[in-house]
Every structure is written in structure tokens, then in C-alpha cells.
């Protein structure tokens, strides 16, 4: 179906892909695996014809190729239906016109296939990242392509929605559509992939049938060494309360020093909304106390002053400043610490940036590389580094490992643990059940903006969590 031969591509002289060849057959799900920055997205964009290779050929035999982008590309001020049908609008009665009714119907049908009930007439702006990802998937399906490239389609989705996507993928496979799939969620690969190709540093390392692999071997191929994936050490929670929250339409909880509280819920459960309100980024009525003292927070600047830092979920929208360097992005929330009066101290700043880059193993050509040209996972690490440099006592992490590779994910989990051991209070929102179970000391389940249950990760089961997260029947 798709023949890619000897694809090479470099950015500003630095190779991102070096002679990658790949054959994708009709009716197979081909997983493309690799660490952050291995070249997966670059490869997919070249196959989709959205990026020109330096050398090499792509032959898709005249078939149509659609792509789900890792970085969401919504038209924020258009409706969901308009987004889904953009570029292939159903023709209306007169030449050149569009049939808006058909557009809406088609959007609703595509979303229904994914089990989503998003209103096709809603504006994209204001949808959660997860909802936008759903729209993006629906849009790619709408092309009825012969091959679909899916670049981390589930990075913002919770297990339940991912399951529905897998149903759709299996259906596509039955119809002979070729699917190329990337994800950093290992379990997904073994559930859905027929074959797996591993990229490492822009080279193709191996292609195997998925059945020949297990998680440990796959990780070893990706990372180039065996990874000792043990469960992180146990909690270090102390007794002093660092953060306590009351109000915000039905939330009341505390996070103690050294404690990691995981917050889980279905897509759109309101976790982001709640966290943003605490951080002063979104409107909300409630009381926040840090170390027992009431913190009046009207803006993130206030929050940071009170020792709260947050890594936001929407990396592109409210995370990176794309045209700034890695250094400038890292120190953005802590310029005061590297300044004398109004002057930014170049030396202090560079040192702080270098510290985070090595501490988080950020893969970049150097601190001066423009952050927009980093791979998604590495951008995410920069966001973490920015929050850490603000030296917070309370750290709110909204989907902190979204798009981060297995190796790095373990590192980030270990890092979160370490921060907890240093006494920081951590509120971690995640849609990945295994992550919540592995990292948290305590789990809060959120539904419709309210905390509906508090569970112990050592005893809680996935079914139990789901039961609290699902809306009550009737």
C-alpha cells in the first residue's frame, strides 16, 4: 500500500531521519515506535506529503492518505462540523456551495462511530484537548482514506475513549485500510498492532510482528538497552497539609507535603477546569490554602507567589512560547530568580537552563534551539522544567506525561517521586489509569466537576475507579 524508501531528512544540518525504509500493507496496523525525537512524526508528515524529504521516495500507489496530527490543529473559531469536514465539504445544490445539513450529519455520524456526543454545532474554542483530539480523529476518518497515519491519537484520551478508537481501527483493518500508529502507551501497541517498526535516532532499527515482541523487548529496542522498569519507591507523605482546597463547585480535598495525589476522571470530567481555577487561570469561586494560610489567587502570578506552579494540559495553547529558545522557555516563570533588579543575568539563566536540560534529559541541540522545533515529548519536558524552576511547594501537573516516551516516562515518574520526597505536594491529573495507580499515594475521582471518591491506589482496582467516574445511570 505504502512504500517508503530511504527517507532522509535533516533540520538545519541535524539529521532527524537517516535512510528509513518502510513498507505498509493494506489492512494492517503498523505501529511506529521510538523515543521522543526518534523521528516518528517527521516520518509520518513526509509520508502524508506535508513535509518534503531531503532524499528518498514515497509511493502510496495513488491511494489517499490521511493523518491525525500529534499537535492538534483545530480551527478554533469554527464549529466542530466545519472542522471535521474542512477541505472536503459536501457539495450543495449549486456549484461551489456547501450543504450545511449534510456537513452536520456527517460530523455527527463520524463522532458517533467514536462514541462521542460532542455537538457538531459547538465552536472548537472551549472544547477540552481530549474533545479536540476526538474531532481530529473524526476528521481523518472522514477522508475515507486508503491509509491513515495516526500520530499519538490517544495522548489526551482516557482508556474508555481509546477503546472505542480501537474498535474503529479494527473495523478499518477489516476494510483493508492501512493504519500507521504511534503511541507512547505500550499496552495499546500489543492490543492493536500487527507489526511494529522501531525508530531510534532517525534510523529504522527493526520491524517485527507484534506477536514476536513483548513490552520489555520492545522497550529495549527503542531505548537501545534494557530498562529496569520497577515500580517507583513508596510514598513519603508527611503529615503537614500543604494545599487545601474548598469550593469551586463541589471540591474539598487536601494535599500533604511529600504526597502525590492523583486525579482521575473521564474526558471532560472537569479536572482541568478545577486545577485551572485553583491556579488562577480560569474563573472559579473557592478557598485555597497553602501551608494553612489562605492564598488569594486572582492570577497565575499570585499562585506562583504563593508557591503553586502548574504544568498546563494544552502545551501548544498555554504552554510553549514557540518562537523562544529552550532556555527562554525554561526560565519564563522564574526570571526573578535569575535577575538582579531589572537585569536578567545571562550566566545565571544559562546555568538554570542547563541544569534542567540535563536533569530532565531534554533532547535538543542546545539551550538556544527554538522550542517549536523540538519533538513533542521534549517540549513537554521543558514545560516540567519551567514549573520546577519556579521552586514551588505545590505542583499541579495536568497530564504531565502526555506524549512522553516510555523511557522518559519512567524518568518523569521517578522525578515526581523525588520531588515528593523533597517535600513538595503534588496534584497530578492523568487520564492514564496505570500511571495514576503507579505513582499516586492517593486517588481522587472526579465527575462533573466534583470529587466523587477518594481511593487508595494499593487497594483500588480499575473497575472500582471507573464505577466512580462514570455518570450515574438514569
Amino acid at each position: 500500500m505504502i512504500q517508503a524508501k530511504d527517507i532522509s531528512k535533516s533540520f538545519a544540518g541535524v539529521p532527524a531521519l537517516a535512510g528509513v525504509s518502510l513498507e505498509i500493507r493494506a489492512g494492517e496496523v503498523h505501529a511506529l515506535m521510538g523515543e521522543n525525537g526518534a523521528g516518528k512524526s517527521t516520518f509520518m508528515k513526509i509520508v502524508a506529503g506535508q513535509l518534503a524529504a531531503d532524499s528518498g521516495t514515497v509511493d502510496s500507489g495513488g491511494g489517499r492518505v490521511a493523518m491525525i496530527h500529534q499537535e492538534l490543529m483545530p480551527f478554533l473559531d469554527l464549529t466542530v462540523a466545519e472542522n471535521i469536514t474542512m477541505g472536503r465539504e459536501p457539495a450543495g445544490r449549486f456549484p461551489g456551495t456547501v450543504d450545511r445539513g449534510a456537513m452536520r450529519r456527517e460530523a455527527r455520524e463520524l463522532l458517533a462511530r467514536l462514541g462521542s456526543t460532542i455537538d457538531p454545532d459547538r465552536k472548537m474554542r472551549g472544547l477540552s484537548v481530549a474533545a479536540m483530539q476526538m474531532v481530529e480523529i473524526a476528521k481523518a476518518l472522514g477522508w475515507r482514506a486508503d491509509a491513515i497515519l495516526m500520530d499519538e491519537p490517544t495522548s489526551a484520551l482516557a482508556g474508555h475513549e481509546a477503546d472505542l478508537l480501537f474498535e474503529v481501527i479494527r473495523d478499518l483493518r477489516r476494510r483493508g485500510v492501512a493504519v500507521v500508529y504511534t503511541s507512547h502507551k505500550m499496552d495499546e501497541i500489543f492490543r492493536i498492532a500487527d507489526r511494529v517498526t522501531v525508530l531510534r535516532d532517525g534510523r529504522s532499527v527493526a520491524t517485527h510482528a507484534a506477536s514476536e515482541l513483548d513490552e520489555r523487548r520492545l522497550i529495549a529496542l527503542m531505548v537501545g538497552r534494557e530498562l529496569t522498569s520497577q515500580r517507583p519507591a513508596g510514598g513519603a507523605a508527611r503529615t503537614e497539609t500543604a494545599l487545601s482546597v474548598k469550593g469551586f463547585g463541589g471540591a474539598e480535598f487536601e494535599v500533604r507535603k511529600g504526597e502525590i495525589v492523583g486525579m482521575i476522571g473521564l474526558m471532560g470530567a472537569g479536572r482541568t477546569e478545577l486545577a485551572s481555577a485553583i491556579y488562577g487561570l480560569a474563573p472559579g469561586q473557592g478557598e485555597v490554602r497553602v501551608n494553612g494560610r489562605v492564598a488569594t489567587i486572582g492570577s497565575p502570578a499570585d499562585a506562583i507567589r504563593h508557591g503553586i506552579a502548574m504544568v498546563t494540559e494544552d502545551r501548544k495553547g498555554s504552554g510553549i512560547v514557540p518562537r523562544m529558545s529552550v532556555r527562554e522557555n525554561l526560565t519564563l516563570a522564574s526570571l526573578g530568580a535569575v535577575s538582579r533588579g531589572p537585569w536578567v543575568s545571562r550566566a545565571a539563566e544559562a546555568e538554570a537552563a542547563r541544569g534542567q536540560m540535563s536533569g530532565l534529559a531534554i533532547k535538543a541541540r542546545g539551550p538556544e534551539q527554538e522550542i517549536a522545533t523540538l519533538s513533542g515529548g521534549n517540549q513537554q519536558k521543558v514545560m516540567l522544567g519551567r514549573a520546577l524552576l519556579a521552586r514551588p511547594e505545590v505542583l499541579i501537573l495536568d497530564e504531565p506525561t502526555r506524549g512522553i516516551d516510555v523511557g522518559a516516562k519512567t524518568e518523569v515518574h521517578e522525578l515526581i517521586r523525588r520531588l515528593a520526597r523533597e517535600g513538595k505536594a503534588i496534584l497530578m491529573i492523568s487520564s492514564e489509569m496505570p500511571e495514576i495507580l503507579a505513582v499516586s499515594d492517593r486517588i481522587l475521582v472526579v465527575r462533573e466537576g466534583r470529587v466523587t471518591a477518594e481511593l487508595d491506589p494499593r487497594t483500588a482496582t480499575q473497575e472500582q475507579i471507573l464505577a466512580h467516574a462514570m455518570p450515574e445511570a438514569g
Partner: protein
Amino acid sequence: MTRLLGRFGLVIALAVLCAALSAARPSFLTLGNLVNLIRQISINGILAVGVTFVLLTGGVDLSLGSLVALTGVAAALFAHPGEYPVIAPVVAGVAAGALCGAASGAVITVGRVAPFIVTLGMMTAARGLALVASGGRPVSNLSPEFTALGGGQVLGVPVPVIVLAAVAAAAWVVLARFRMGRHVYAVGGNENAARASGIRVGRVKMFVYTLCGALAGLAGVVLAARITTGQPNAGVGYELDAIAAVVIGGTSLSGGVGGVGGTVLGALLMGVINNGLDLLNVPSYYQQIVKGVIIVGAVWMDRSQHKS
């Protein structure tokens, strides 16, 4: 519905202004003055409709004022009595505008030069061309059939008003019902995503700049007919008035949001302010202060309405 509601604050601002004016000056709400008012906004309205397309793609066109002058001269050169049929000057004006617009569009898409710079260059160059083409002096002695396009009436409605209505209606249909309209919003909303959706972004941009130029040409024709001469120094500053009408009407300068309905409201608001201040006989210097304050105030009101 949502679109109209989106501009609710603006409608209210307009209504309040009109009520205040007709209370102070009964002559404001006469049919004569209202027709007069709409005729007064026709040139700005036509330009504003054209530039709405450009702003929706996230671009800008600063050359409109100069294009009005150039195309007015071009039209006037073909409008002397007894030389050509009356369609000739209209075609000449619109074609000259479309050509200039297309030239700007080509440099913007092919050369990837910022629209601000390209159309600023066009603004300067087109003014020079207008002076060269006219020899620096007004082109007059125009046929009565041609000047009727500016001063005439059909069934009691002034021709410029009919032209504006037709242009606005057509633009609304294109933006709301045609694929090209969707693509205009897409390019302005997220250019990369538009490209990734298979939209030929270059073509869309060529389309909007050419259309905007053509409508500037139409405005130039109407203006030349109205003032019965092709004036090479006409239209100075018209581009800002046109863009202002569009932005007052809620179209974002960064593209992707807005539409022609708001633009017409915006042009209307500006017309009412100008007309009202003249009717109230506010001294010229204070007029400007009041005008600045009202424009900002109306948009402010509109925006706060939005939030609620």
C-alpha cells in the same frame, strides 16, 4: 442567530445613538436623511466588504484608498461622453482594481512577504500610477450615463445604495454558503491546519486580494461617478475607515472570526456618527474627539456584551 446575537451590543449601541440623535434633531429620523445616510456609507461599505475577506484570512490591505483613486481615474478615462458604452468604464475600473489586488496577492503568496508591507508598497505605487495615468490632474467631462452610477436613482433608491446592498448580499452568500467561504475562514483560523486539510492556501489568498482589489475598483467607479471626475488624489485614508468598519463589526484582525453582517453594522455605526455629529453641528475639532470616544465606546459595549 448566534452570529446576530454576537453583535448584539453593537446593535444596541447603534440603537441608542439613533434614539439620542432623533431626540435631539427630529430631522435625523426622516426618510430623506436615512437614505442620505446609507448613500454616505456606500463607498466605505463596499471597501469594507472587500477587506472583510482579506482580514478573515489574517491579512490586511492598506492600498484601498490609492486603488480607489487609481481605478476612479481608469474608469474616468473611458467615460467621456460619446466614446464607449457605459459598461467600459465600469469594467476598466474593476479590472484595474482586480489586477492590482492580484499583484499584491501574488507577491504575498509567492514571495511570502508580509501583507502589511506588500499592500503598503501598493498603496504608494498605485497613488503614483494614478498621478501618472491622469497627468496629475482630475479626469473630468464624464458622460451623464456614467455619473448616474453615482448620483442616479432606481425606483427612488440611490444607485450606490443598490450597489452596496448587492455587494454585501453576494459576499454574505459566498462566506456563509460557498466552499471558498469556508476556506477563507480556515486559512485565517489556522493556516497550517488549512494546508494540512488539503486547502490550497495560495489560491485562497489570491482570491481574497483579487476580490478586495476588484471591490476597491467598484468603489472607485462609484466614487468617480458620484463626484463626476476621476480624482488622482481621492481616497486618502479610506483604507483605515474600511478596516475600522470591519473591526468594529467584530472581525478579528488575526483572522478566522467575523463576517459581512458585522461589517455592514460597523459601517453603519461610523456613518451615523459622522452624520449625527454634522446634524448636531458639533464644532469640527470637538467632533473628532467625540467620534474617537464613541467608536471605542461602542466596541467596548459590544465586547462586554459578548462575555455575558
